[in-house]
């Protein structure tokens, strides 16, 4: 048992495990397209930790190193954003209004649903900024008086949900253009949704990244009145 502990206490364990599971998830995804690689990677890692009795803190050392690259990856969204702007010209107003309405309805619908279903105040406040990117959701949950960790988890779960439901739901709802799909998924499911769209279309991914950065600015502004009320 001590040898296993020695193995998992090095950050190399967390990094290697994450990359190995991700590579395996990509192979499986190539075969079965409906399997979500992020769901497979995270799910596989959770099963591994639980089955082997490895504490989350041990994994976190390496996990944080992988998660660090979310920073430069977000900055890199400037590239598809720059490229898609030429095609977006004249449609910017539509995207800005769409993102604002979507973000506002997201906050209101969460407040109404959680309140109606009797969730605790901490859960409600942590869930309000769920459609913003996780680093922003974490900060906003804290400012609103909720739990920052829970806020981050809800944001990631929302991203996962939106990226799994989004493309099919929008096709069903007759939203089929690049601008409509990109804006909707970027607003609802931030970076995870953007990553999902990027797999199929750089245009949609670029617009989604644009919507995501826009909602990262709009969501904190929309949350200011709630901050006053609580």
């Amino acid at each position, binding site marked *: 048992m001590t040898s296993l502990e020695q193995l998992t206490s090095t950050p190399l364990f*967390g990094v290697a495990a*994450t990359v190995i599971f*991700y590579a395996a998830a990509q192979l499986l995804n190539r075969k079965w397209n409906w399997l979500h*690689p*992020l769901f497979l*990677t995270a799910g596989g890692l*959770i099963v591994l*930790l639980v089955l082997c009795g490895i504490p*989350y803190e041990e*994994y976190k050392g390496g*996990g*944080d190193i*992988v*998660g660090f690259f*979310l*920073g*430069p*990856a*977000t*900055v*890199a*969204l*400037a*590239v598809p*954003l720059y490229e898609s*702007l030429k095609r977006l010209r004249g449609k910017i*107003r*539509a995207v800005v*209004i*769409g993102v604002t*309405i979507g973000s506002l309805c997201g906050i209101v*619908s*969460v407040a109404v649903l*959680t309140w109606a279903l009797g*969730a605790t105040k901490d*859960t409600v406040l942590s*869930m309000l900024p769920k459609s913003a990117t996780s*680093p*922003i959701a974490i900060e906003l949950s804290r400012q609103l008086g909720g739990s920052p960790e829970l806020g981050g*988890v*809800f944001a*990631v779960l929302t*991203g996962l*949900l*939106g990226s799994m*439901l989004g493309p099919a739901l*929008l096709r069903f709802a007759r*939203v*089929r*253009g*690049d*601008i*409509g799909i990109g804006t*909707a998924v970027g607003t*609802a499911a931030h970076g995870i949704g*953007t*990553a999902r769209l990027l*797999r199929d279309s750089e245009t949609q*991914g670029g617009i989604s990244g644009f919507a995501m950065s826009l909602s990262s600015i709009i969501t*904190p502004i929309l949350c200011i009145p709630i901050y006053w009320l609580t």
Partner: protein
Amino acid sequence: MLGLAILLGYELIGYVFHQFLGVPLPANVIGLILLFVSLMRGWVKLEWIEQPARFLLKHMMIFFAPTIVGVLVFADRIGEEWAAISISLVGSTIVVLLLTGWTTTWLAKERQRDDIA
């Protein structure tokens, strides 16, 4: 390496803006906005950053995986309120997707089935 240096440099500038100048946005979002402006102005050439940017974007999902594994820590809490949490998450996500999609499609006068590319 130049590309990665530029990406990290912009994130660092974003961090300075956030931490020392009190801009209420996360460092990476400020970095994204600044890099976008620099590309528009021609201060940064697309070729310099294209390679690492495409690699990071293509594999963006892996960078989220560790945070999701963190759900483990909240397993009990989520277990107690799982019904309220899951219904709210699913319901609200559907609302955001549909309203944003419809509003934007309508305002952009985008034809259904028709891509702009």
